[in-house]
């Protein structure tokens, strides 16, 4: 009887001990994996955006694209009313003709005077005629350049797409007035998509340039494959914003609990699954695995 109670006691202890130690082991393993794997839910799809601005100002006479339209490099995006530039070109051409005639006149004069003898004309007069002809030549060249500039202005009145891409959030309308350098159309460059994964700073030591990355777009079954392209070498210090009198404005932080900063890690997208339309601004979760050789 005494013996069986002892055995029963031993079984009671060992069974409990076994399960509890298994639980501790698994719990520690999960904690370790959770803390030491590089992943984030804070990933964003980004793209290069060109802010198309005209080189000349004027009234918009035609908008040649619709919202979200795909455009190719060199396509006209919108047209600035060209009449003013056409007039400028005519004016420049007319001026060039005048200068050309003046040049011909001065040149003939110089030639004539250079052939006349010293009794007919003074040396000073001859020299003046020679230099006048040279000045007229330079003025003619200047007028020709003005024609070219006027032609360039006329060409630049048709605003063209600098690269292949998609027009986004088109707000420009016919009749709007645009200034030179005024950003009015956003063009998302084709093939320029990348992912920014915002990783907690303590996880950066787990990430190396070239590591394969697996991205999952929020709420879809699509998985993007990529690799780490680079790691940002700086973010702004939120706790020290210079004040109006140029003094440091250090935020009194709570000493016990500190939040990890997020460092952007740029991920190059290698493959995009078929059927997925990538839009800049999409949320995705990023998980980075180690490069096989380092493992």
């Amino acid at each position: 009887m005494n013996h069986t109670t002892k055995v029963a006691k031993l079984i009671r202890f060992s069974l409990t001990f076994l399960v509890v130690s298994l639980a501790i082991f698994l719990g520690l393993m999960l904690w370790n994996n959770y803390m030491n794997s590089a992943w984030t839910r804070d990933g964003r799809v980004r793209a290069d955006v060109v802010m198309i601005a005209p080189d000349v100002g004027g009234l918009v006479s035609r908008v040649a694209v619709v919202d979200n339209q795909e455009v190719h490099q060199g396509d006209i995006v919108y047209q600035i009313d060209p009449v003013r530039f056409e007039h400028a070109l005519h004016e420049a051409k007319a001026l060039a003709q005048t200068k050309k005639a003046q040049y011909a006149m001065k040149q003939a004069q110089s030639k004539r005077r250079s052939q006349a003898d010293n009794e007919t004309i003074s040396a000073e007069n001859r020299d003046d005629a020679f230099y006048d002809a040279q000045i007229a030549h330079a003025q003619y060249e200047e007028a020709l350049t003005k024609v070219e500039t006027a032609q360039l202005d006329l060409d630049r009145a048709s605003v063209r797409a600098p690269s292949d891409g998609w027009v986004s959030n088109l707000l420009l309308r016919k009749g709007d007035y645009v200034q030179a350098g005024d950003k009015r159309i956003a063009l998302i460059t084709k093939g320029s998509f990348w992912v920014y994964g915002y990783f907690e700073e303590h996880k950066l030591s787990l990430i190396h340039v070239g590591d394969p990355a697996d991205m999952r777009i929020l709420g879809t079954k699509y998985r993007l494959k990529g690799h780490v392209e680079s790691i940002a070498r700086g973010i702004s210090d939120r706790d020290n914003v210079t004040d109006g009198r140029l003094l440091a404005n250090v935020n009194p932080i709570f000493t016990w609990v500190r939040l990890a900063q997020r460092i952007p890690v740029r991920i190059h997208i290698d493959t995009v699954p078929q059927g997925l339309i990538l839009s800049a601004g999409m949320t995705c979760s990023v998980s980075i695995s180690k490069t096989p050789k380092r493992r």
Partner: protein
Amino acid sequence: MPLDLTLFGIQMPTLLPIFVVCSVMQILLDRVMSDAGIYQHVWHPGLFRTAVFVCLFTLPCLFIYR
């Protein structure tokens, strides 16, 4: 397993639904074990129950964070 699941446009960690499922399983398992009288052969039923739950929960989670 994916890092997170999306339900009705809200993204949540996969740990959360696993936790719920494990809780239900734990309740059922608890019934079965108490009917079978296993708790009579256990030193500290409360500790044992907790440990069983931790095992149930961590095993599938290990497939997420490998």
